[in-house]
């Protein structure tokens, strides 16, 4: 599994569509105080399903929507997309260069049983399939259900949107889905529940300061 790139639109201080490519190795993110560095970390946590507004330094979830600056009015929606390559491959996927992650991944693709089983493979992530920016949510009907999927495409795109109304939307390769679908999909990858892969600013001591029982959760996650 590799993070390929992230696209941010209207999330916190990112007004226009901003692209963040994830290189291999170590990437340093620098800039003056208040320029938006920690907001990048928040965007990653949010698109991967973070449900607590306080973990995003906000009071309510809608606070993550761009709420204006000296020169711009507040927006009505925030959207973040995370593009993965080789979602189910071991390690960071360099090994199976054939482009289809399922080739030597964990074998069977994610099995998610849902209310009405429908055979809906994840569509190829079309570069041009820009979700309609602005306010109108997509039609409810096209909600995605992951079932027996033979071929997981080379690239999987996870998208999350939120509107001023507080309503959240989750999208997988352009098709609406539920948060649970994304969580189940991620749980089968090396990302897991991300307990220890994001350290927020000023919170490095929490890794140690947590009560012994809480610390245990990190170990169980790794085990």
């Amino acid at each position: 599994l590799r993070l390929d790139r992230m696209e941010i639109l209207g999330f916190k201080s990112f007004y226009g569509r901003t692209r963040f490519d994830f290189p291999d190795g170590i990437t340093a993110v620098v800039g003056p105080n208040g320029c938006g560095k920690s907001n990048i970390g928040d965007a990653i946590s949010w698109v991967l399903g973070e449900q607590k507004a306080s973990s995003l330094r906000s009071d309510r979830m809608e606070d993550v929507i761009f709420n204006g600056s000296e020169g711009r009015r507040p927006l009505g929606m925030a959207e973040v997309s995370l593009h993965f390559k080789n979602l189910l491959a071991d390690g960071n996927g360099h090994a199976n260069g054939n482009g289809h992650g399922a080739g030597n991944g964990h074998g069977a693709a994610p099995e998610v049983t849902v209310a009405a089983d429908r055979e809906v493979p994840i569509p190829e992530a079309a570069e041009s399939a820009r979700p309609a920016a602005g306010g109108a949510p997509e039609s409810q009907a096209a909600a995605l259900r992951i079932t027996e999927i033979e071929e997981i495409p080379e690239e999987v795109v996870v998208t999350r949107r939120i509107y001023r109304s507080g309503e959240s939307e989750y999208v997988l390769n352009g098709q609406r889905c539920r948060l649970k679908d994304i969580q189940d999909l991620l749980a089968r990858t090396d990302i897991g529940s991300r307990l220890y892969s994001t350290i927020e600013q000023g919170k490095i001591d929490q890794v140690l300061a947590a009560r012994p029982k809480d610390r245990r959760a990190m170990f169980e996650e790794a085990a």
Partner: protein
Amino acid sequence: ARERFRGAFEAIQEHFQESFRTLFGGGRAELRLSEEDEDVLEAGIEVAAQPPGKRLQKIGLLSGGEKALTAVALLVSLFRYRPSPFCILDEVDAPLDEANVERFTRLLQELRSDTQLILITHNRKSMEAADLLYGVTMEEPGVSKILPLRFE
């Protein structure tokens, strides 16, 4: 489940001792399952650390920088046991002195083959250790933009 957990615990413990010695240039650290719980599957995890030349003590008595370094050692040991595809560290080098920043970035080099690391920092030494640099600016006040940077 009990065997699995114990196995993981022992392996993480070993990685932790190794990472701690690398970061502190000596000393030792240990993870212990708290005694008060009978069952291994319920027990909490205690951490004790002994920076070089000092006595073994509870982590509460460590200094700000020593705590941050010990936390990084624990984090790295979890990653060594089960790599995660990515890791975001937001100014974890802020409390460290220059010598410890160097040891910290050297240790991160060991993770980079398995993990994409994002290091948010104001520290020049950390910037020098990175493969790539991204700058975040607010040329337009209140609006963030991301630009690739070259290091001068």
